[in-house]
């Protein structure tokens, strides 16, 4: 009877323990709520929109701030649309006297952009907006006693909001001009916005004087000649000449509104000392606001109750087909945004915990690390990628897209051996380009996550072409409707024509030795370097790897003291100019004190002339023709081994909806939707605790204790017996 009682007790206890999930990293009510659970791999350093220029920072910032424009979430190719504007900006071309002229007129000296903002934009609640009756800021001059009670923004008893006005957008541009705020865009914008250069000098000097005295800098007292606030909802920006890419910058956080109250509020020294600044606590009008910023642990966004009316995009059937958008992604068309109430981002530095928590259902989406690739993905015989059976059983979906980025290997065109523009020098580079088997490289080192590049422009950007037309004829042949890399024999012939038959220099009789500079110095990079050597050895060329730290590597590239090196580029905006300027002669890094982005130092007068012409043209057949000619020149000169365009792969659970890869749009959280009920049910089913090891462990411990106790007793009694004897 006693034994039966024990048995029933243990059984009941086991059943009770098994009924609950022990390994949930969040409270149950949070899991059941409309909350997204995601990750970030490195803490964001800057959340000040004027300074931040990093994808891992924009993940948060773009949900909080609202620049005038945004990319349509669903449409491909990428399309700009108004975000805080009532319509797309009005563009007016002006001559030297300020009179309006046509777009094609040679008289165009300025372009005027007129922005008309919505009148229903409001900031999130924030203590900076709290004002006294005399209109002064309630928390604008915090004394020591008040500061003692403040640890986070939640410690302020009152928070208020106010309407966003055109002058807030102008204020953001003024902040950009202050050198002490370190905006990465300032030097670019100085070339375009009228008077910004002089304005920057003026406010930088003023900032230096104010900050030295411990005073705050109020930028309302200063004005940029090219930026005019017409009324509360209208802003005009005048730029030099024509620069159609200017509108793309208007979709970035640099141009999001900054309320002067927040700027002055955060300049209080006492707050800065507590890590409360515009760099850590953004103030925006977007769909979310930052509720918690623990950069070393967790970042939490909450729905902004003051967010204006915005609806999920609607596409016609034709647009949906052209953009590759399925019907399920259009189910929410016309519904009010945002869908998710809260987003919790946890810091996960290691891939193993991240991946396992995703499999347990505690993260709604995940990338695929190389360790988890085989578990998640099956490669078909034709190279097509599909989900593994395990992923399918869990209802996981794969979202993939080719990114608007390129990884390439550059020849330093200033180098006497691999650089230069003679026929022989071109042929040497062409031979090396053929010998670099990019298909093998992508397969071995990137798990097929890439597309071999045919030129600098990646898919999705105007100027990229598929098929034979888009094939690089220097490296590939078009055979039976497919791209086929030219044979090694063809490469060897080019090498012989270049004066290096079999890799031996005709001039010196010695084997050609080339130097490849890299920062890949770890043991994991050895295989990659061996592969690189092998590609050159196929031609009889000896490749010497010069491994160095990142600082020295950058210095060598800036000074042109390299021969071969690998580099990459991510698009700032979806325009071919943003890729072709990497080969524009005036951007050569050695000629620009290291500031240029043409790291190969490629200079071709014909290419440069075409670039200058194409740069300011709208997308049209004429522009495409010029781009095709430019690509032909670049392919022939081969300043880069064109490398590959990387493919992004993400896995999402079945309960996570409306996930569309859009490399240009960063403010995508508002479109996404969660089914928390389904998530909770799956988590409960997948995470029942396994109890038998616990019971076995308990038994093992009991046995050990019993054994030790018995042994000790035996030993003690043995001694006594001996004494007795």
């Amino acid at each position: 009877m006693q034994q039966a009682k024990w048995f029933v007790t243990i059984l009941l206890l086991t059943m009770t323990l098994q009924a609950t999930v022990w390994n949930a990293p969040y409270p149950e009510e949070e899991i059941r709520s409309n909350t997204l659970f995601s990750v970030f791999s490195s803490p964001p350093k800057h959340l000040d929109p004027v300074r931040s220029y990093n994808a891992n920072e924009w993940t948060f910032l773009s949900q909080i701030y609202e620049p005038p424009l945004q990319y349509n979430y669903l449409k491909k190719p990428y399309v700009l649309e108004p975000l805080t504007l009532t319509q797309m900006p009005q563009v007016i071309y002006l001559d030297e006297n300020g009179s309006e002229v046509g777009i094609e007129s040679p008289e165009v000296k300025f372009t005027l952009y007129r922005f008309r903002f919505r009148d229903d934009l409001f900031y999130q609640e924030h203590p900076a907006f709290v004002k006294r009756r005399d209109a002064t800021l309630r928390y604008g001059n915090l004394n020591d006693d008040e500061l003692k009670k403040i640890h986070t923004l939640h410690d302020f008893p009152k928070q208020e909001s106010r309407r966003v006005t055109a002058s807030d957008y102008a204020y953001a541009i003024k902040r950009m001009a202050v050198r002490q705020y370190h905006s990465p865009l300032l030097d670019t914008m100085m070339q375009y916005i009228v008077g910004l250069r002089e304005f920057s000098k003026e406010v930088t000097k003023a900032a230096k004087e104010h900050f030295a005295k411990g005073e705050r800098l109020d930028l309302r007292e200063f004005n940029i000649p090219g930026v005019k606030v017409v009324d509360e909802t209208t802003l005009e920006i005048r730029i030099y000449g024509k620069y159609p890419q200017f509108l793309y910058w208007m979709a970035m956080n640099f141009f999001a509104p900054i309320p002067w109250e927040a700027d002055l509020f955060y300049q209080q020294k006492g707050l800065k000392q507590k890590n409360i600044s515009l760099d850590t606590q953004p103030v925006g009008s977007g769909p979310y606001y930052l509720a918690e910023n623990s950069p070393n642990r967790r970042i939490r966004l909450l729905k902004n109750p003051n967010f204006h009316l915005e609806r999920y995009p609607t596409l016609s059937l034709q647009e949906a087909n052209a953009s590759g958008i399925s019907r399920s992604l259009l189910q929410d068309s016309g519904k009010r945004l945002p869908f998710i109430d809260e987003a919790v981002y946890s810091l996960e530095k290691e891939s193993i915990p991240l991946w396992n928590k995703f499999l347990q259902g505690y993260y709604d989406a995940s990338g695929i690390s190389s360790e988890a690739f085989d578990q998640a993905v099956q490669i078909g015989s034709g190279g097509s990628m599909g989900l593994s059976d395990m992923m399918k059983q869990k209802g996981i979906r794969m979202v993939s897209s080719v990114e608007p980025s390129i990884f390439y290997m550059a020849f330093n065109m200033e180098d006497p051996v691999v650089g230069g523009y003679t026929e022989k020098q071109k042929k040497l580079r062409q031979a090396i380009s053929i010998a670099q088997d990019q298909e093998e490289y992508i397969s071995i080192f990137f798990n097929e996550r890439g597309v071999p590049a045919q030129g600098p422009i990646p898919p999705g950007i105007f100027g990229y072409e598929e098929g034979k037309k888009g094939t690089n004829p220097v490296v590939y042949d078009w055979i039976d409707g497919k791209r086929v890399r030219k044979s090694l024999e063809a490469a060897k012939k080019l090498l012989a024509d270049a004066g290096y038959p079999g890799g031996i220099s005709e001039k010196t009789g010695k084997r050609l030795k080339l130097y490849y500079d890299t920062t890949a110095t770890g043991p994991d990079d050895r295989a990659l370097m061996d592969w690189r050597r092998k590609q050159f050895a196929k031609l009889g060329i000896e490749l010497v790897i010069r491994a160095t730290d990142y600082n020295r590597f950058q210095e060598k590239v800036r000074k042109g003291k390299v021969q071969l090196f690998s580099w990459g580029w991510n698009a700032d905006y979806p325009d071919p100019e943003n890729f072709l300027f990497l080969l524009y002669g005036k951007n050569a890094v050695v000629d620009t004190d290291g500031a240029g982005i043409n790291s190969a130092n490629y200079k071709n007068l014909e290419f440069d002339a075409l670039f200058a012409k194409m740069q300011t043209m709208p997308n049209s057949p004429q522009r495409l023709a010029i781009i095709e000619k430019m690509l032909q020149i670049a392919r022939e000169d081969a300043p880069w081994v064109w490398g590959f365009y990387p493919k992004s792969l993400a896995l999402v659970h079945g309960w996570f909806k409306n996930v569309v890869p859009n490399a240009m749009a960063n403010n995508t959280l508002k479109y996404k939707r969660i089914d928390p009920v389904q998530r909770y049910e799956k988590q409960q089913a997948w995470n029942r605790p396994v109890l038998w090891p616990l019971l076995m462990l308990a038994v093992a411990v009991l046995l050990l204790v019993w054994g030790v106790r018995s042994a000790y007793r035996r030993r003690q009694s043995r001694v006594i017996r001996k004494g007795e004897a």
Partner: protein
Amino acid sequence: MLAYIIKRIFYAIPILIGVNLITFMLFFMVNTPDDMARAQLGAKQTTPAMIAAWKAEKGYDKPLFYNAETSGIESVTDTLFVNESLKLFLFDFGLSDANRNIAEDIKARMGPSLAIALPTFLIALVTNISLALLLVLFRGSVLDMSAMVVAVMIMSVSGLFYIIAGQVLFSKLWHWVPISGYESDWAGMKFVLLPVAIGVFAGLGSGVRWYRSIFLEQINQDYVRTARAKGLSEIAVLFRHVLPNGMLPILTGVVVIIPSLFMGSLIMESFFGIPGLGSYTIDAINAQDFAIVKAMVFLGSVLYIVGLILTDISYTLFDPRVTL
């Protein structure tokens, strides 16, 4: 004792100056202020104007040790080394190169580091001593020899293996605890269990072997024989006589590490998502954030010196023959 402590604190000053000097020299041998500016600005195109503005704001436009543009004492005082070192000695760590208050960050990260390190330290100490005493009790037996073999095996395996194996077994397969995460309140206990258990287990081999050898040295001493002759049980002999006399060498190794518990563990915190100090210095080195690097090296040195002083003081508590 007070005089001794004051003397030791004065001795510490030249040591800290020396450590600081070496930190400055090593860091700037590898990174130039221009490199640091590029790393901090993080822009695709970093112009000379941007670099100059950043250096001026952070004071890195000043020479490192000697300012040839000034004269007299200023040629030494108006330098990066003197400006930054003086603040350190006042425990004013200032702002990081990414503009965060370093003291605030250290304060915020110390708690989570201690939440793992302190229980690990205490449980490991008690467990290791208890097991060592148990093995001494059964010295020369099969249990003792088997335990020593197991201890060597535990020591021979990398700590990283225990972390990954622990996460796979207890979190992934058996679903007992969360794989990673942290909460500062009692609800966060479940996040701490596994890293603490792994920390205790990983240190078991070396700890038990070390303490066992200390206790074995004591077990054959005359005073132990006398205790046995008085008719005390073996357990009473071990706990009342062997353990207190073995504490002195244990204290030498243990007390010195107590202050450094604040500094956390790099791998443990990284794998378990603990927002502690473990990776703070390494992240700063990678980000070329000199302000954090020098602050953490300085703090580490101070804590080490404090540990040594505490060790000396603890001797007087356990051994009446020692006076300071």
